[in-house]
């Protein structure tokens, strides 16, 4: 299909599919068949050279059975190049008139920015955003804290029904997954402990390792990360959807402060549930330790229980549980803050939810590092 069309060219071998046939020679050609989007490439190929041979050529389209808008656009293009269209059927004329009269302009090009400039711009934007995000977070922490304290001073402002619902959703419904994860983390630590300590004959210390790390760090950390992914994201999505449906604005118009009805109950509920969940995770972690002791160290559960008070004490439990409400406060705050930042469109709900989860997990781990240093200095 490289030369000027010969007498007949078949667009496709399949007889059932629409075809376009170019016939005739020299200055006069005729199109028969279907000139639609599916046969357009074929027709263009066949007529490419012919149409460039200058003016005073004629194309007969009386044999066209069907014509669609891309086909008409192609014919209009030929007409603009000086090709005369003859034998236009009545039912094609309206379409051709419509398409040829359209004021067509090519799509404007998007200006591309050089890569090195893009990087600089990204850096600048990132720094600018980071500053604003930090300021926003600090402001929001302050506002949320003041509203929470206000609600605690005036208990009539607390919404027990709402708090109870959130306690159920963030706490009771999370029990199975958190229990399972704590149990498995304990087993992971236990296996590593046994493998590393056995060459030195100290595999019995695995019990200390599991118990201390679960109570001080792993129990609370796993719980907080799980809750951040589960409930923090849910807070953002719930409030975000309310924001897109203008429910938050409706509250403000009614003179009800969104902070009081949406944010405070969630903070209070999470501050109640996260320590309880952490305690549950601690218990499950210790049970995981018991399983390791039984199967890897041949220490029976009764022996394990009698050894536990000697390897851990109240301060280990306290260190873990003390961190839980602090984490809870920040997870709830970040979740609610991003929920309230949702603007209009549904896709911003997804974006803010992702940000909320990333930020709250980051905050949990950063705070945990801070607490580790703090407790180290305090000698707890």
């Amino acid at each position, binding site marked *: 299909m490289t030369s000027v069309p010969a007498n007949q060219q078949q667009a496709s071998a399949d007889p059932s599919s629409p075809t376009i046939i170019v016939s005739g020679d020299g200055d006069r050609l005729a199109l028969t068949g279907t000139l639609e989007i*599916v046969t357009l490439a074929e027709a263009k190929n066949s007529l490419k050279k012919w149409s460039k041979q200058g003016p005073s050529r004629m194309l007969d389209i009386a044999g066209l059975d069907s014509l669609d808008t*891309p086909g008409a656009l192609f014919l209009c293009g030929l007409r603009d190049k000086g090709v005369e269209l003859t034998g236009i059927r009545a039912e094609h004329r309206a*379409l051709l008139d*419509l398409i040829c009269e359209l004021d067509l302009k090519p799509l*404007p*090009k998007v200006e591309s920015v050089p890569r090195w400039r893009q990087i600089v711009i990204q850096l600048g934007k990132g720094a600018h955003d980071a500053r604003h995000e930090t300021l926003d977070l600090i402001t929001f922490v302050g506002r949320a804290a003041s509203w929470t304290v206000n609600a605690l001073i005036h208990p009539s402002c607390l919404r027990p029904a709402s708090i109870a619902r959130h306690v159920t959703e963030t706490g009771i419904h999370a029990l199975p997954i958190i229990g399972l994860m704590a149990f498995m983390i304990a087993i992971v630590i236990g296996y590593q402990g046994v493998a590393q300590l056995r060459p030195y004959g100290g595999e019995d210390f695995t019990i200390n390792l599991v118990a201390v790390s679960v109570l001080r760090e792993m129990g609370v950390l796993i719980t907080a990360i799980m809750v951040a992914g589960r409930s923090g994201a849910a807070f953002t999505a719930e409030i975000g959807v309310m924001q897109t449906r203008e429910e938050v604005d409706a509250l403000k118009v009614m003179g009800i402060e969104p902070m009081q009805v949406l944010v405070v109950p969630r903070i209070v509920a999470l501050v109640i549930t996260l320590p309880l969940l952490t305690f549950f995770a601690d218990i499950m972690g210790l049970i995981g330790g018991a399983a390791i002791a039984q199967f890897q160290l041949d220490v029976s559960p009764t022996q394990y229980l009698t050894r536990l008070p000697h390897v851990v004490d109240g301060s280990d439990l306290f260190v873990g549980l003390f961190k839980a409400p602090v984490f809870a406060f920040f997870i709830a705050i970040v979740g609610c803050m991003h929920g309230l930042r949702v603007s209009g469109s549904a896709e911003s709900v997804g974006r803010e939810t992702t940000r909320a989860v990333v930020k709250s997990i980051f905050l949990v781990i950063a705070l945990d590092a801070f607490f580790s240093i703090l407790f180290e200095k305090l000698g707890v």
Partner: protein
Amino acid sequence: MTTRTKAHAEPILSAQGIVNRFGKQVVHDKLNLEILHGEIIGIAGGSGSGKSVLLKTLVGLHEPDAGEVLLNGKAVQSIVAAERAALIGVLFQQGALFSSLTVAQNIMLPMREHTSLTGKEQEQIAAMKLALAGLPADTGIKFPSALSGGMVKRAAFARALALDPKILFLDEPTSDLDPIAASGIDALIRQLNHSLGITVVIVTHDLTTLFTVCDRIAVLVDRKTTVGTADKLMKSKHPWIHEFFHGPRAEGAMKARKPSHGN
């Protein structure tokens, strides 16, 4: 212009014995509907009368509990995806433009998927569809979030026309639009039907659209359709249909119809 024969006798789409039920609630009970080649048909009905479900059934998105929908004589559910895309265009109520793509990319998406045209040719066709839908070319590089309500509808129109469908379904094309934008959409529907010969099915409450644009109207009452021209339906004895065509809003919309009566 042309003397294109309006509405051939044979239907392009026919729904026979459609039954749709959700739980115990029966929405459509042995509903029949024939849509003729080249006509503009309006589907009207009260809120909750099952207009949207009917639309989804007709385009093959929802499988009815009984009955079948024939498009060009073939069951709509059995038509392969590429062929169905070339036959049916749908304008969804909220536009349903993909928010991560520009308007031009939205229009080119079905072309990229179902044709072998080069990128440049696709862009030319997309620019033509934009112009056809009455949008300036620079709309093409914008994202849907940057468009006004009326422009979203027009852009969605352009995308629905991407593969030059034979039948175009419009779900509430004039809802949420100001009267000027709504009239513009009405004129666009008429123009496309006239010049491209597309069969148009409009699901709407908008009485002005029903009176000024549609050749025939199918009213969904009592889980079935009553089909006829506006004039015929106005004489209907059915209380709901009577109320629909003789309420205070209908009287106002009727006035809009008068000037276009001679055409």
